[in-house]
């Protein structure tokens, strides 16, 4: 029993990061109708940012968020200007298709670049507090992972606040709701797109930092994280960042339960089942309101 509880707990802890990873993807998809399948590679880059800040300058990995987030914002803006800004000119279906293709090419190039620059080795950041564990009854909670879950929730909360209070946050939400109406009310939707993409990339960078602290980073983690994020987005739908976070927790728990029931090698299968079941149960899909 306590073994199962421990597994579920660990699933919950990684689920928070699934939620954070999915939040950025969901924001970009919801606002721009652009599906960036290089999202996981942006997470990977954020992870390497934290790794090198720690390795070269001894920056504490949690403190490195202060640098990784603005860096990722800038990277997101550059990617928008250089690539995805061209995609949003097309109408919706072409837009999704071209963004998928461009994201795929970008993922490929970033992965090859990361292998070239930093080798294919797996890296993690050793810290003095890395092994600390909080014991509650028979459960032992790794403190670093608990901290990443908490920070993920804080970041999601901050994003929610930004979207509901900030002038441009409201513009972003209006654009997501109905871009034509937003355009008519005088909102500069291109700027809303740019901000949404930059924010989505910043969330990816933050997620990458937390992944590297609690687990590890290597050039090939990208696709895996893209996939987790996509499954959470399918599961949680669009529109609510908190909902996306909860969706991440659900996927983490479901994977742990699947591993406990069918054995560790089968933990990933549950994601596929979620995808097919959600589409069967909610046939109107993500955009159904």
């Amino acid at each position, binding site marked *: 029993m306590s073994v199962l509880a421990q597994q579920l707990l660990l699933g919950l802890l990684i689920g928070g990061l699934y939620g954070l990873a999915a939040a950025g993807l969901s924001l970009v*998809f919801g606002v721009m109708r652009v*599906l960036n*399948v290089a999202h996981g590679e942006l997470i990977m880059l954020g992870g390497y940012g934290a790794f090198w800040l720690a390795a070269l300058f001894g920056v504490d990995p949690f403190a490195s968020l202060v640098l990784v987030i603005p860096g990722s914002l800038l990277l997101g803006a550059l990617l928008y200007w250089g*690539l995805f800004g*061209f995609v949003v000119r097309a109408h*919706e*279906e072409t837009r*999704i*298709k*071209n963004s*998928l*293709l*461009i994201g*795929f*090419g*970008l*993922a*490929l*190039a*970033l*992965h*090859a*670049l990361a*292998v*070239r620059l930093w080798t294919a080795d797996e890296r993690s950041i050793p810290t003095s507090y890395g092994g600390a564990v909080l014991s509650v009854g028979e459960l032992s909670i790794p403190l670093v992972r608990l901290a990443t879950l908490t920070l993920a929730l804080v970041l999601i909360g901050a994003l929610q606040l930004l979207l509901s209070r900030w002038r441009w946050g409201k513009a972003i939400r209006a654009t997501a709701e109905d871009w034509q109406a937003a355009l008519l009310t005088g909102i500069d939707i291109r700027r809303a797109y740019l901000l949404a993409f930059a924010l989505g990339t910043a969330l990816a960078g933050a997620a990458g930092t937390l992944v590297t602290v609690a687990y590890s980073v290597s050039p090939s983690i990208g*696709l*895996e994280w*893209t*996939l987790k994020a*996509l*499954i959470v987005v*399918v599961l949680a739908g669009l529109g609510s960042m908190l909902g996306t976070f909860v969706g991440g927790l659900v996927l983490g728990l479901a994977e742990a339960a699947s591993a406990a029931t069918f054995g*560790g*090698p*089968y933990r*990933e*299968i549950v*994601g*596929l089942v979620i*995808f*097919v079941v959600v*589409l*069967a149960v909610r*046939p*109107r*899909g993500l*955009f159904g309101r």
Partner: protein
Amino acid sequence: MTAGGHERRWAIVILAALALLALLPLTAPRDDVLNFVFLILLAITLAESWNIVAGYAGQVNLGHAAFFGLGALVTRMLWTEGAPVLLAMAAGAGTATLFALVIGVAAFRLRGAYFAIGTLALGEILRTTVGNVLPEISTLPAATIASYRLTQRFYLALGLAAVSVLAVAALATSRLGLGMRAIREDEEAAESSGVGALSLKLTALALSTALAGLAGGLFAYYHISYYPSHPFGPHWTFDALLMTFIGGVGTLQGPVLGAILYIVLKEYLALRWVDIHLLIFGALFVGIVLLLPGGLVQAAERARGVLGGARRAA
């Protein structure tokens, strides 16, 4: 659409070239030459199979490796258990198609990105799971290795490439293919003029994944040892996508040209810089999607148009 005659001509050119290649083993070439041509033939099959769904029905399959991998997995299992290789390959193709239809029925009822997400998920999840469940390398038994004949594999690859080219040519010139292109261009307009979008998309998917499954079976028949999760690797999808787009998506000859160019450059670049070709091709691919969505075929047509214009003006 005046494309029919055009595509028939290309089909004849490509099939004639493949027929010439059938003479290659008679010249007793070195094994590496035969292996190199084998890789190109496998690539042509893979690219044309991806092209059916993307180029004709307009759906982006980001998990093509899943179907290639399933074909390889089932073929290898049955063949090493003693089943005739063609039967094993047919079973592999059938399994791949079955999985494709489960994802397709769920995802195609909705528009947009669901199919891409579903196929991506299928590919990655199967790769991880197969890697977890079958972590040991799969090697042929010594007796099979002793009787291994490269020429057999070569002719099978040649036949499969010819079948995939014929399949795409037949599709391109048929009513079925016309309906698919109508969906690609405008699904609502196609539906309102009586084209059943769902069943056509599923037909395209079944054809495409059956060919991918056969290609996977060929892979399993060709390699002496490999990790069972290897044919599920995402690079098989990347390869299919890059070759098709570089050549020209939605044309018969594009994926063939793309496959030849891709394999030749990949092998050449790999001699000097391992994996650098992925960086180059990734960037090239993004450029093609943004600037030249018709690939090399479109570039050639434009060049011919400019030349023709110049000749008329002179």
